């Protein structure tokens, strides 16, 4: 019996169409739109001006606090304007618009980084490199990585968990990365273990990626401290708390962090970015994005420069097919439909999903029939139907007492609801109100 988390969870159709497609390199876009709010926390501070020439990897917006991150120019070119562009949030946000210099050769060089195993830096240098390179959690939450690694003295961390679960249907970006860059990922893990003085690391991978499990096991042969755990296929296993529970059966306390139970979790994409930052001093300017959809002809995985407009990606796979209803940034479960295709790829974009009319329709919401399906599938043990009702009626204090803030917004409840009730929409709204009330109280 394979390991998994005990409470709730669902198993939606996997649809991993692109799992056999090698990661290709996207052509360099003519213009990139680099938003300054690509991570959780304080937006970065712009340090370039109009008409400035920038090089690849030059810092264009610098971190403006502890929970913030540097942003680097993904291309060599000229800053044409600082403008407000609709980003993945659906609102206009400040962006740095950079026109690519077509004559600059550095833009078109194939990045070639041979495997480099020796770790020559000490702990301080590694942390500095990670901070300066603007690395954030690439699993989707975009939490600045250096914050997770900056341990206080009273936190004793004994285990590093690497998240290669990729439980979202359709997405295969992490899967392909694990297959193609297995050795680099193992070195990345060793770098982190070295920096944090951790003696144990576990890579969690769902059992539908057998080739990736094999590849990583082979790469990790020489290092006995790194283990690979095959997990049962179940959504939302990629969530930090569920993954910890599945792998080493520890429970993160309510409102706490994995650090509280001695664990740090990183995504495989983040690990690869850390490897590149530490070994080759390369900032986070590109990431793997899966561009997929049932009707997309050439669905595949791509190395994409941050700031590339999504329309470039869609054009690369053969344009928007007929009957398309939504284009989603991220996976089908937690992703968010984008407003238009000018929206740029950010550090948190793990996939672009093109959904057709019949897949996208949500169904008319009907009354709750008290079947309890949502309670069964909630991985956090909440009562989604109750939380929705409380939010709908504006009884926020009771909702707060019912632990609305522990919801991880996985959307399992909305997925199973036979009455098509918009459970997660309301819970998310309730959370935002409760958060406001809590900050007002303090």
């Amino acid at each position, binding site marked *: 019996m394979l390991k998994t988390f005990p409470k709730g969870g669902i198993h939606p159709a996997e649809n991993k169409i692109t799992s056999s497609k090698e990661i290709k390199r996207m052509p360099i876009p003519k213009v990139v739109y680099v938003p300054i709010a690509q991570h959780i926390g304080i937006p970065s501070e712009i340090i370039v001006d109009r008409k400035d020439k920038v090089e690849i990897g030059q810092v264009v917006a610098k971190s403006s606090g502890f929970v913030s991150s540097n942003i680097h120019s993904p291309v060599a070119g000229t800053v044409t304007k600082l403008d407000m562009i609709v980003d993945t949030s659906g*609102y*206009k946000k400040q962006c740095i618009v950079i026109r690519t210099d077509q004559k600059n050769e550095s833009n078109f060089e194939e990045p070639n980084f041979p495997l480099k195993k020796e770790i020559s830096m000490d702990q301080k240098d590694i942390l500095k490199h990670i901070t300066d390179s603007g690395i954030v959690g690439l699993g989707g939450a975009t939490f600045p990585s250096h914050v997770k690694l900056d341990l206080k003295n009273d936190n004793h961390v004994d285990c590093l968990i690497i998240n290669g679960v990729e439980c979202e249907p359709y997405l295969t970006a992490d899967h392909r990365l694990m297959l193609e860059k297995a050795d680099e990922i193992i070195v990345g893990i060793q770098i982190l273990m070295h920096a944090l003085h951790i003696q144990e690391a576990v890579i969690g991978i769902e059992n539908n990626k057998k080739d990736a499990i094999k590849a990583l096991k082979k790469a990790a042969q020489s290092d006995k401290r790194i283990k690979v755990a095959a997990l049962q296929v179940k959504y939302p296993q990629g969530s930090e708390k569920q993954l910890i529970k599945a792998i080493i059966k520890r429970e993160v306390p309510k409102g706490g962090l994995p650090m509280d139970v001695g664990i740090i979790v990183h995504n495989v994409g983040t690990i690869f970015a850390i490897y590149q930052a530490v070994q080759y001093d390369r900032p986070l300017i590109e990431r793997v994005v899966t561009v997929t959809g049932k009707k997309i002809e050439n669905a595949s995985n791509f190395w994409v420069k941050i700031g590339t407009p999504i329309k470039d990606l869609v054009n690369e796979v053969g344009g928007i097919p007929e009957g398309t209803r939504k284009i989603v940034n991220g996976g089908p479960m937690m992703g968010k439909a984008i407003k238009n295709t000018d929206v740029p790829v950010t550090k948190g974009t793990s996939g672009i999903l093109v959904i057709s009319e019949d897949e996208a329709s*949500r169904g008319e919401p009907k009354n709750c029939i008290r079947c309890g399906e949502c309670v069964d599938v909630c991985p956090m043990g909440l009562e989604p139907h109750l939380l929705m009702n409380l939010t709908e009626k504006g009884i926020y204090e009771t909702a707060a007492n019912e632990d609305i803030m522990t919801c991880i917004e996985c959307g399992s409840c909305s997925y199973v609801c036979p009455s098509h009730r918009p459970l997660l929409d309301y819970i998310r*709204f309730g959370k935002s109100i409760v958060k406001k009330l809590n900050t007002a109280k303090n």
Partner: protein
Amino acid sequence: MTNSILYSVLLLASLGIFAAIILYVVSKKFYVYEDPLIADVDDVLPAANCGGCGSPGCKAFAQKLVNSDDISELFCPVGGNDVMKLVSEILGKEVAEKDPTVAVLLCQGGCDVRPKTTIYQGPRTCSISAMVYGGETDCQYGCLGDGDCVAVCDFDAMYMDESTGLPVIISDKCTSCGACVKACPRDIIEMRPKNKRDLKIFVGCLNEDKGGIAKKACDVACIGCSKCEDICPKDAVIMTGNLAYIDPVLCTLCRKCVEVCPTHSIIETNFPPKKVKKPKVEKPKVEKVAVVKESVESVIPKTDA
């Protein structure tokens, strides 16, 4: 026979006396003194229980009025100055005098002038759709059209106009309780002073984008051209970035700004038709915001050239 009648009468009578004694003791023991003034004040308050004053209901507000020494900051927006004067007479305390206000909608981007560019499928309430994204049109400042304000209005002073998709405020019914102002996630509804004939001039737009972008998203958006600021004789127009705002205190309702506005985003309400030499441009402007829009649209092509 007679005995049974007698017994039952006696039994019931003794039960009654017993209960009366208990009630008497309890009422003496647990007597709570309530200032009779509270009931008096509560009587003159409008009994709408709307919460516009900040208290959870009229009774609570009456208690607050009676118990606080200084009530100059408390005000019942529904009752207005008349009710507050009565309260002042009862309590013998100084009350504030405020000009009556009325809610106005600072957006006139109906379906006809503000094209939809996105389809939203989630729950149809403004608060949730505002959290998810910038709205179905390209204007992220304007009305979302899901009617949260209409739902909270206790006085039937608002309704959704089917043809424009915007809420309409009926000035005569509006009590300026402020419930709609709080309900709107976009802060589109503003309380503006109400004069006798309900004449108002205000900028019906909140779009802070640059002129070109704003105009592209909505035909009647304020493009920040500052023409109104230049022409205003009383400096009542305040430009913040790309958006004009008319200060209701300084405005003398001369209507000069209404004429110069190239996008007709400045709204005038309840003014009689102006006596101008070219009657073909002017159409009678009547009470409601929605009606003003029609006349606005008909004028657009002429001024654009």
